[in-house]
């Protein structure tokens, strides 16, 4: 597998769950300003 594809897969593998966690936390944090 080319390095570019391996990099995209590796960063996506850790980045997607992290982005999901940040979005869920941010949407909860919005309650602070409502």
């Amino acid at each position, binding site marked *: 597998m080319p390095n570019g594809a391996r990099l995209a897969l*590796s960063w996506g593998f850790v980045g997607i769950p992290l982005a*999901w966690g940040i979005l869920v*936390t*941010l949407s*909860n944090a919005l309650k*602070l300003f*409502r």
Partner: protein
Amino acid sequence: MEEDFLDRAHSVANARFSRWLVPPAALCIHLAIGQAYAFSVFNKPLSQLIGVSAPAPGDWSIPALGWIFSLAIVFLGLSAALAGKWVERVGPRKAMFTAALCFSGGLLLSGAGVALHWLWLVYLGYGVVGGIGLGIGYISPVSTLIKWFPDRPGLATGTAIMGFGGGALIGAPLAVNLMKFYSTPSSTGVAPTLLTMGVIYLLFMMVGVFTVRIPPPGWMPAGFNAPARPKKMVTDLHVLVDQAVRTPQFYLLWGVLFLNVTAGIGVLGQASLMIQEMFPARFPHATPAATAASAAAAAGFVGLLSIFNMGGRIFWASISDYIGRKNTYAIFFVLGASLYACIPALGHSGNLALFILAYLIILTMYGGGFATIPAYLRDIFGTAQVGAIHGRLLTAWAAAGVAGPVLINYIRQYQIDHGVAKADAYSVTMYLMAGLLVVGFFCNFFMKSLHERHYVPLAEAAST
């Protein structure tokens, strides 16, 4: 065969390997073990396993459940301190594999403990076995990252340690959603949630185990030339871990980490209560519905703090590559002490936005303190045994985990018992935390390079 695959010699990268594959491998471990910060989401459901909707006779008490997390942090500190030399010797792959087995095994054991309603098995599972996984996992990628990124050690270790902060952001909603999925009218769903998370985290961490590589001996990034004369406070020599712990520099850095973390844990632990009690008009408790809404808003505030705690890890660690570690910690202690001292006044002024902003900046520096310390150790003690030295230094974290909450809770309670209003009781604790940061400033101020007699040749350091 398995021994061969996990062996250090079999994880040496080939010439085509990109070093940018190593940070995601490290993140697979740190994002998983960072779940520990979110363990509190289990406290309420664990306290009503029998009663389900409310605690019933025979249910576990919240103080008894608090020991699960405390044990995990104590075993994190102990295993990081004791296993550091082993981690350096066997290499990152075997260490990460062991961490994955311990951490996910701890989740599985505690899931069984919950199903059988045996609290001792939950202590043993999550607290002891899981805690050992936390400690080994935390230090396992550090020296590998430093060796892959001699040009940006702060960025590299900051990325991994950012993962530990980010782990809670994944672990909390994952646990909440799984408990929602598994819960029934007769069960809180905690046991199957812990078992499922044990399997998910094992698979997630194994991707890191398979991906991680160590650089070939003498490898340097293309275009990078190590400076002929090392920068001030940055060595290109090596110190053995047993020698490092005999130097004043180790204890000054221990103090730097301990004081920064003690102050940070102190404010983190009381953030939710503090904002509600300092801004009663914005967080009303007149009716049960208002109380619930206020609690949800305060939980949102704590979530926001977690994001800035995580972001500060990579931000400050990366900045430290340019301005130096000593200057970075000087900023933490000067700016931090000023902000801690301003918090009571900001609360009394009624300016919620400024209060939140001060808190967010403080939290970036709390996270930054964790993330910048491995690069600081690398600068002072060299790369050969930096993971093991980092492991020993993490005892400061375990000590701060006890000192921070005890200081805050006892001082606050003492004041309230002596007639101080709840909203005013925070002032003294904030000033005390600011004072701790002033002491931390001087620990950092007195840091200087090691004398040459402490260093050994790389070959000797690598073979020890």
